[in-house]
Each structure stands twice: as C-alpha cells, then as structure tokens.
C-alpha cells in the first residue's frame, strides 16, 4: 500500500521562473524515503506539495487523501493532524518552553485541545527523546541537538501518518548527522511512520531504498 503516490505533478512559481516536474513516484507505507538533488532543484517545493502547503497540477495522493481535491482550509486541517513537519534549522517559538513548543500544533487547530492527555503525550515524547529534564527550558537554553529533538517531538504530537523533514542534517558534522538519522529511523520504526527526508547529503541518500533524484528528474 502506498503512503505517497505522485502522478504527472508539475508546479511553477508565479512568473514561471522555476518549474518542478515529477512524472511518477510512489512511497510504500512505513518507508523512509529520500528526495535529493542539487540546490534549487525543487526539493523543498516538493515537500510543500506533499504537505499540502502548495498546490500544483497533477495528482498528489498522501495517506489515501487526494490533496488537490481539498479546499485550502481542509488541506490545512489535514496537514496539522496527519503530517508532522520538521523544518530546516529546527525553528522553535522563543517565548514558549520546550513542552509548550511540542504542544504548539494542538493550539493552532480549533478542533484539537491541549488537555491533560496531550500534556502526558508531550512529556512521554520528550522523555523518549531524552528531553525529560528540559520541559521548562526555553529554546535559547538548548543546544542544536536538543532543538532538533524538540522539533521531532513537535512533529509527532498529533500522531501523524507522515513526517516530512526538510534538510534535518544540514550543517551537522558526520557523527551528529548519523545520530540524527538514527533517531529519525528509530522514530519511524517505533511510530510506524512514513518519513520523507529532503537532503543533498549522499550519506543520507544511501540510507533509503526509496529515492527521488530531482536533479535527474528535471
């Protein structure tokens, strides 16, 4: 069963200065997939299409949901509940502590609630990622590795089917890169997730059997 199925996907930014084209790509459920290619080839744009942040032409089916058929509001609601997003450089909200940063997606959807159960889930995720002692710390008091793990916990708080990670190893030395990918791999296996990683790092690419080379595709 495919978690992701792309058919004749095309996307162009207004003005047509850049165009992305993916004739076909499928990722089986529970797999680790990698999108790679040189800078500017459209890796992050494809991640935007998979997360429903952007809409192009063609068919984008994620978690059995045809995204092009959804309204903007429905796509946002689907994204917040079904997709965990890990952004490049792991941005966190500076004035919220670690636990509140993890709970942030629940505060952004009127149908989700920050209740006791949600807090217990957040604490369990933080404990699982060795951050149990950091729940009340502010992002400014965290190391890069700790921020990364908080970003992973935030991506998992809504219990998503899919995690999209944009350059999660950018700027890391090989040892830290491997540790980060090991962690992502462990999360994938323990939570039964489909994970799509955007990277231009060959070592990360080599970890996956489901690759999409946008450099070759374009």
């Amino acid at each position, binding site marked *: 069963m495919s978690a992701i199925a792309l058919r004749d996907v095309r996307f162009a930014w207004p003005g047509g200065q850049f165009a992305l084209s993916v004739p076909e790509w499928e990722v089986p459920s529970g797999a680790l997939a990698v999108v790679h290619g040189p800078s500017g080839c459209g890796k992050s744009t494809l991640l935007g299409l998979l997360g429903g*942040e952007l809409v192009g032409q063609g068919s984008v089916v994620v978690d059995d949901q045809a995204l092009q058929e959804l309204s903007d*509001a429905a796509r*946002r*609601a689907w*994204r*917040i509940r079904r*997709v965990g*997003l890990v*952004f490049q450089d792991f*941005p*966190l*909200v*500076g*004035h*919220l502590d670690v636990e*509140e940063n993890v709970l*942030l*997606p629940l*505060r*952004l*959807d*009127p149908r989700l609630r*920050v209740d006791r159960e949600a807090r217990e889930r957040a604490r369990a995720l933080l404990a699982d990622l060795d951050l149990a002692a950091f729940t009340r710390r502010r992002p400014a008091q965290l190391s890069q590795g700790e921020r990364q793990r908080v970003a992973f916990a935030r991506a998992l708080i809504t219990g998503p089917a899919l995690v999209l990670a944009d350059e999660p190893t950018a700027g890391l030395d090989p040892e830290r890169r491997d540790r980060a990918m090991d962690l992502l791999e462990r999360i994938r296996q323990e939570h039964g997730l489909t994970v799509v990683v955007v990277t231009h790092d060959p070592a990360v690419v080599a970890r996956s059997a489901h690759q999409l080379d946008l450099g070759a595709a374009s």
Partner: protein
Amino acid sequence: MIRDALFLAVSWLRSTPLRTTVLTLGLALALGLPAFVQQAAGALEDALLERAVSSPILLGREGNEYDLVMNALYFRGRVRNPAPAALLDRAVAADYGVTVPVHVQHSAHGIPVVGTGPEYFAARGLTVAAGRLPGLLGEVVVGGGVAGERGIVPGDLLRSDLTDLYDLSAGGALGLEVVGVLAAAGSPDDAVILTSLETAWALDGALHGHVAVTEDGGSGLVEASPGIFLFEQLDASTRASFHLHGRRDELPVGAVLVFPRDRAAHDIVLGDFSVDPAWQAVRPRLVVGAILDIVLRLRDLMTAGFALLAGSTAALSAVILLLGLRLRAPEITLMRRIGAAPGTLAAVVATEVVLVLGAAAVLALALVRAGLVFLEASL
C-alpha cells in the same frame, strides 16, 4: 481557539516585559489624559456651579464681583472692602427672604473663620455630626472635611491667627471653643470654621473683654491705660465682659447672602441695588458662568492638545506593534507552515492588541479616578 490565542499572546507579552510596559503606559496616558481633562473640567464645573446655583444673590460693596463671589461663597481669601452691618440691616428690613451675613476676615490655625447667622446652616443644609451648633460668643463649629483632616473634635480650643502684627487697633489672637463638627457636605463649608457674626467682630477687635477698670473716686471717670489686661480667651469666665465700643451698624459684615422667598422678591433685590452706586447685587451663577466659560475654553484647548498627543501615541503604539510583528515573523511563519489558518494567526495578533489596549484602558481608568479623587480633595 480564544483560549489558545490568549495563551500565545500572554506568553509573547510576558517575554517582552519592557516593551509591553512602555506600550501599556503610553496608551494609558494617551487614553487617560483627555478623559481626565474632560472629567476634571466637569467636576470643577459641577462643584462651582452647585455652590453658585444654591446662592441666588450676594450683596456687597461695589467692586470686583469675581472677588466678592470667590471670597464670600468659596472662602478663597478675605472679603476685601467689606460691607458694613448697615447693609445687612437694610436687607433684613426689606424682608426679601432669608438674609445671612458672610464675614470672611480671619483664620484659626490657617483655617478660614466665617462669621455668619444661625440661618446659614439651614439655608445651606448643614447638619451637625458631633456636638451642637454655636450659640454663644466664642463658640465655633468646624466643617466636616477639615475637622477630619486635623482631628478636631468638640471640646477642642482653637486659637485665631493674628491678622496684622502692626495694626494696634486689630484684635489679638483669641481662643475659640469648638462646640460641634459638621457633617461633610461636599462644599466649601467643609473646609472652614463657622461662628456667629459677633464672634467674628470679637476677632476684628471691635468686641473685646478685659479686667474691670477702676473708678476714680466716684467721679464717674474710669482709669484706662495700655496696661489693662485684655482677655485672650472667649469662654464662660470671660464671655460676660465682652462688649462693643462704637456703632453696631458700622461694623463689617463682609457680604450678605440673600435667599429670596420668591421670584418677585428676587427681582426686587436686584432692582433695589441696581440703582444704588454704593452697593452691588451679584448673581453668583452668572459670575461663575463667566469663569466657567474660560475654564471650558481651556478644557477644549487642552482636549485638542491631548487628542493630538493621543493620536501620535496611538501611531507610535501601532509602529511598536508592527515592529513586534516583524520580530515575530519567524514564529508566525512557523505557525502558518504547521497549518494554522489565517484567522487563527489573526486571532493571536488581535488578542495581543486587545490585551494591551485592555490593560491600558484599565490603567487609564485608574489614573483618571485617582486624579479626580485628588482634584475633589483639593476643591
């Protein structure tokens, strides 16, 4: 959604305490100052008008009507060039209605001493909170406000202030007995000592008491010299010896307050005194109205000034809020990318604005209230 927007807005505001404080204080002043000027002018207007409206006609010597009204009604200084008792006698004889003298020339411990008649208390609606009204020479009753401030109670002795050290004919300081404290009336009467006209004359030195003089060998002549001991206390032991030298109708009463019995009597008073160049009959409401006209113009001017200040403060606050939004741009982008709807993001930002405005409004209200309490106390 509102709870979450509130949580995020409060968290952001708490993380920038200096900015939040400056913004709130700035907006509070911008909102509070024009409101205070409006309210203060209104309170001043009410206080002045209430007294003026309740004092239909004031008689006095020809002269500055503003001085006469301010001194005789609001006790803002002595009544200069005071009218004699003959004016009071003439008004009483004409039977216009209730006629009361207002003698404002002295003070005791810095508190104005007003010599008047017993009708004054009923005409002004003044009641006694403790003790009784003055009935005998040397007895006084103290206004509720000043009695509370100074801790004056019935039984206390107040010494009048010396009016002029270099005037040998002026009365010396006299001890006055407090026999009552008035209930606070919210008027200038709260801040004065009220006594009889005769006691006021004793303070003038026109009535005085001294030890018995010796008669010279049955000739009918008495021996009087500067060595005669003048009493400095007006009480039961000295009261009987106080007496008047000279003509009563020449003694000063300051001004005469007339409460005409009806409209016709009102017009007759004005008519009688409009043709006599020695006197003036003043309608305090018109005099105070003229003063208020100046106050209201000043208020409009100040309101316009503060409105400009409020406008510039609001613009500055908007700039600070927009700069705050810029600082929060990465955070807002993050929330949008996670999946927040534009309405949710707008609610977070709007909640922040509403919180700051709400806090500023509460603070402005407190500032206006405190200012008005201070103003009322000083009025």
